[in-house]
């Protein structure tokens, strides 16, 4: 199973509303990253939160991390139609002899104008 599992799988909201996506993981991590993917394109890095951080902001994005619950959330405030995309969390953890980023299966966000 995936190290990072996003919830919900799909989310549809109206423009101006807030969107919240969650990510759960199973093992200890070094950091957690969120990425965005527009349809048919590659992923774009949004934000990185380290394991000793609890909250981080970047523009309209707010990420929280709860290592005791092994979960993270991504909040997009005042959403816009242009925020329509898939959002992935990626956990940075040791896997075998090296650190790797492991991606979840993503949340498809649709923002309706």
């Amino acid at each position: 199973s995936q190290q990072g599992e996003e919830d919900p799988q799909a989310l549809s909201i109206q423009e101006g509303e807030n969107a919240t996506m969650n990510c759960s993981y199973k093992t200890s991590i070094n950091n957690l990253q969120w990425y965005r993917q527009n349809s048919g394109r590659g992923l774009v890095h949004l934000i990185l939160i380290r394991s000793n951080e609890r909250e981080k902001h970047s523009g309209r994005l707010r990420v929280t991390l709860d290592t005791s619950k092994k979960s993270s959330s991504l909040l997009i405030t005042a959403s816009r139609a242009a925020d329509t995309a898939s959002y992935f969390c990626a956990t940075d953890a040791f896997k075998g002899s090296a650190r790797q980023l492991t991606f979840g299966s993503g949340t498809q966000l649709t923002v309706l104008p």
Partner: protein
Amino acid sequence: DVKVTQSSRYLVKRTGEKVFLECVQDMDHENMFWYRQDPGLGLRLIYFSYDVKMKEKGDIPEGYSVSREKKERFSLILESASTNQTSMYLCASSLYSGRWETNSPLHFGNGTRLTVT
């Protein structure tokens, strides 16, 4: 801005063919990665490389090999393409900060959608 370029956006190959997917990055990044993306499965790591001529297996290396002869170029090879390798293939690179250091953000190409018939 970092640019990661994948040579083809769409590729159609026949079962049994040898397939080469090429990826070039222009920011002197040490680390390069190949992922495949399938609906409901997210991104799965096939192979990665920390340096020229170095390669390491990811989660799903079977049926694939890689080549990194130059720092900027990382090739994924399907030795004998099969229909279950139909997928979106994504190449990525990241700044090298030491093998044991925090993974810096990945920069992705736009992907190659491969169809094997």
